[in-house]
């Protein structure tokens, strides 16, 4: 090396200056490193908040996440009861699981050091195995950074001012683009399926809609629901109550998506062509079904598919039962029901209309000529208000009122109406009354937030100008000299919490108020009318609070007699529960009769 390179030899020596400087490193564990507030370390899962939807496990491409059952956590509506367990030998800390967690329970923490000779120590249930990490949350599942789409595609609807002018359908339905976008929000967790009385294949048909395969969706839907278009319009949608997205945002519009798919089949022929169900060879068994409501029709349809000779007896001139006579046409048009029933007829369901059992044909005749009988007669009688003056001219029961309006009869309710009740039926009465041109007041015992009616319906009613009078208890119907309704007297109520139950209304003394009106519609519930059943059957039929006792197969205490719909002790009083009854009874009847062979 020549002397000229002396600079090249000496300059690097300046590195010696660095001696004595602080090193980059820290003296662990005496010194702790500052961990970033956004660090992606071990997970922490809030076990209470977690709903076990398994979206974390689904997105994890390392298959590091398993859903496991934990002692003390039971499955319930909207919660699978399972919680994620993470294998840290597989986890790559990408935190996609955090960003797709719909409930926001799964977060990452600043913890990243774990030393153990036992490989199974790295199989952790976050939240259970590291409760202390709760205070070190770092990479969190916030709403604004979440990959879930929390906002639903709004449903287009008629303007309230337009609505009250006719019985035109209020909700206009999704168009194709809206349906695809809405369907793509679904995370396919299946919590909805669990909570649906018929356990419809919800994630599967939503997936088909998202993939623009509407025909596949229709086929999947008809697998266990024969009245899906009706459900798509008016179902009480318990599926949406437990949607994983509703924990922090808006549930997927499962009902509207079902409506979208089923409306693609414009008539019965199209349904038959798309669904193209497999119909078994006819067998020698006959099944009699009493009542062509959702319960009866469902049993009839699925039994017909299984080769049974099915006959339905219906007292009215049209099919559908309560969905035909109880649900206003602005929610469920006549043509929609007719279309679905026409399709059922195509697969072999026979319906005798205008046939009142007990009058036109006896129950015994049906019972003796059938190998099984399914009774789904619904709740035909209204409960009375039980107040003075209820016999006045102009006091209606909801069921009579809606039945008459739906049948196209002229109904005179005058200029001002008071509807009593807080359920869906009461809202229907109020909104129908608005369409008949009346000024409508609705009296409800509790607060608006306590109303059992669908919030969407309540808002719809208010938008149409229905005045809701919460915390009011009717005490007296005032009549004029002709015995006609002149007004309704009510007392105001205060809410009292006693015990653990929901707050109870207590009348406030001296708060009597009179509201002048021309009609009062009582919509406080219905009860069953069993006059079609003969004495000897009623004597043996086990009943409970006016409802027929059935087992989980919808079998009554009488041989080969099954029952379903609103008039049985199982399920809620809604169409989808009736469909579930019909579906379950179908399977039980099939098993009973095929077992004979």
């Amino acid at each position: 090396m020549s002397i000229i390179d002396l600079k090249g030899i000496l300059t690097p020596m300046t590195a010696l200056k660095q001696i004595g400087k602080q090193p980059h490193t820290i003296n662990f564990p005496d010194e702790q490193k500052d961990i970033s507030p956004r660090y992606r370390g071990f997970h922490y899962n809030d076990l209470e908040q977690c709903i076990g939807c398994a979206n974390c496990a689904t997105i994890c491409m390392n298959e590091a996440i398993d859903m496991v059952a934990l002692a003390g956590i039971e499955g319930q509506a909207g919660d699978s009861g399972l919680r994620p367990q993470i294998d840290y030998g597989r986890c790559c800390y990408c935190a996609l699981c955090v960003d797709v967690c719909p409930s926001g329970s799964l977060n990452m923490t600043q913890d990243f050091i774990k030393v153990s000779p036992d490989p199974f120590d790295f199989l952790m249930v976050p939240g259970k195995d590291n409760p202390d990490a709760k205070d070190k949350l770092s990479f969190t599942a916030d709403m604004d950074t979440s990959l879930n789409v929390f906002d639903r595609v709004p449903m287009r609807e008629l303007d309230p001012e337009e609505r009250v002018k006719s019985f035109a359908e209020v909700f206009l339905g999704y168009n194709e683009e809206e349906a695809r976008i809405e369907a793509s929000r679904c995370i396919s967790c299946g919590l909805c399926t669990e909570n649906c009385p018929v356990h419809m294949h919800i994630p599967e048909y939503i997936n088909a809609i998202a993939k623009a395969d509407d025909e596949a969706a229709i086929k999947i839907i008809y697998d266990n629901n024969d009245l899906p278009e009706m459900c798509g319009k008016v179902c009480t949608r318990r599926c949406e109550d437990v949607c994983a997205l509703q924990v922090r945002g808006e549930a997927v519009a499962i009902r509207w998506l079902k409506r979208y798919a089923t409306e693609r089949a414009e008539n019965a022929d199209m349904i038959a062509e798309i669904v193209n169900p497999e119909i078994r060879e006819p067998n020698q068994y006959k099944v009699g079904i009493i009542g062509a409501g959702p319960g009866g029709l469902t049993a009839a349809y699925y039994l017909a598919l299984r080769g049974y000779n099915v006959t339905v007896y219906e007292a009215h001139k049209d099919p559908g039962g309560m969905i035909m006579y109880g649900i206003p046409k602005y929610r469920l048009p006549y043509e929609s029901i007719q279309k679905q029933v026409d399709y059922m007829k195509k697969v072999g369901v026979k319906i005798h209309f205008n046939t009142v059992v007990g009058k036109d044909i006896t129950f015994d005749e049906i019972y003796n000529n059938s190998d099984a009988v399914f009774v789904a007669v619904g709740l035909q009688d209204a409960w009375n208000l039980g107040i003075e003056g209820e016999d006045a001219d102009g006091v209606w029961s909801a069921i009579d009122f809606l039945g008459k309006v739906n049948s196209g009869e002229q109904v005179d309710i005058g200029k001002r109406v008071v509807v009593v009740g807080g359920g869906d039926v009461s809202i229907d009465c109020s909104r129908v009354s608005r369409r008949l041109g009346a000024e409508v007041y609705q009296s409800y015992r509790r607060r608006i937030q306590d109303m059992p009616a669908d919030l969407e319906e309540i808002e719809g009613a208010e938008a149409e100008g229905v005045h809701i009078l919460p915390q009011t208890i009717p005490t007296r119907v005032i009549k004029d000299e002709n015995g006609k309704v002149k007004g309704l007297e009510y007392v105001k109520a205060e809410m009292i919490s006693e015990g653990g139950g929901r707050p109870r209304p207590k009348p406030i003394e001296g708060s009597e108020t009179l509201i002048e009106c021309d009609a009062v519609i009582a919509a406080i519930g219905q009860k069953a009318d069993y006059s079609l059943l003969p004495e000897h059957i009623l004597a043996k039929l086990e009943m409970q609070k006016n409802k027929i006792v059935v087992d989980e197969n919808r079998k009554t205490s009488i041989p080969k007699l099954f029952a379903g719909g609103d008039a049985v002790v199982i399920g809620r009083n809604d169409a989808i529960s009736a469909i579930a009854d019909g579906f379950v009874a179908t399977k039980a009847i099939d098993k009973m009769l095929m077992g004979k062979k």
Partner: protein
Amino acid sequence: MIEKETTLYLGPQHPGITGNMMIKLKVKGDVVTQAETHVGYLHRAFEKLIEGRNWLQSFTLLCRFCVPEPDPMELTYARAVEQIEGREVPPRAKYIRTIVAELARIQSFLLWYGGQSGSSGLYTLGQWSVGDRNYILDLFEDLTGARIYHMYMWPGGVRRDLPEGWVDKAYKTMDYLEKRLEDYNKLLFDNAIFQKRAQGVGIIPKDKAIEWGVVGAPLRGTGIKHDVRIDEPYEAYADLDFVVPTYEGGDVWARALVRRDEIKQSISIIRQALDKMPGGSYYNRIPNPMKWTVPAGEAWVKTESVRGEIGFYVVSDGSNKPRRVHLKGAAYTHGVSVLEKILPGQNIADVSFILNSLGVCPPEIER
């Protein structure tokens, strides 16, 4: 002069090779007469695996294509998907992405300092530069939640906004690094050993560089000015002032000088981007990733990665998964073909030294 030819295997496990690959050398004495690169020790079939994952899940694999520079992979793939889908990226996200891409460049060059000096026997600088690199990784940790595999830039923008105080921290880190570069110069470029080892070694002829497909610092080290950031600007580069350093010679020395100058340019780019950082959204949301479909189509998108121009060819068949994802990286050209061409005539001791100067990353060759 020894006439007997001997076969020598360098790798697949060798401290001079940054990953697993093997170079089969024919040597006479300590002079290489023929070199043959053998890869296949690190094949993970990432491109194939991505075909079985949805568009977002792919990102956890993409960043693992190459350990020293995960970010350009994310960025290029994200841009390709955005191009097929026609998804807009908010201006703020473009600036953040530019900063991340330049931080990635600096941290990768700091790692290169370690490899380049280490392979010439100068170990001190490697300790310094890797130590200083951690301050950049700290920035990444604050911004993305992770130090190496960020999973941060994805279609529509970036995953999280700049955290509070991050901009100040970034300015301070840049100031610190700028000062440290002078120390590095004294240890490496002013060092007689490095000068002797690097000058005139591993020459890529200027007239062959384009033909051989050389990109990045090795190309600019032959005096050819080519940089995707300038030629086809993406993200925020068009709004920012910077020069592309070039040096003549095509040897290890020229390539080292290019990288040294590029760090300075990157620091300047980051400062400008921080100064001009626009407000607004950082992310144009994608739909639910489980059901997110990208319209049928294809895209070929180029980015100036740390090691030069890389490109992603992405094909969508309209489903929620890519039909094909292909990376054209710099490492394959440099590590397999160029290396074989320039090694004959070089000293055995310079093989790792030259390999480092080409910026070869075996994981990226194999994917």
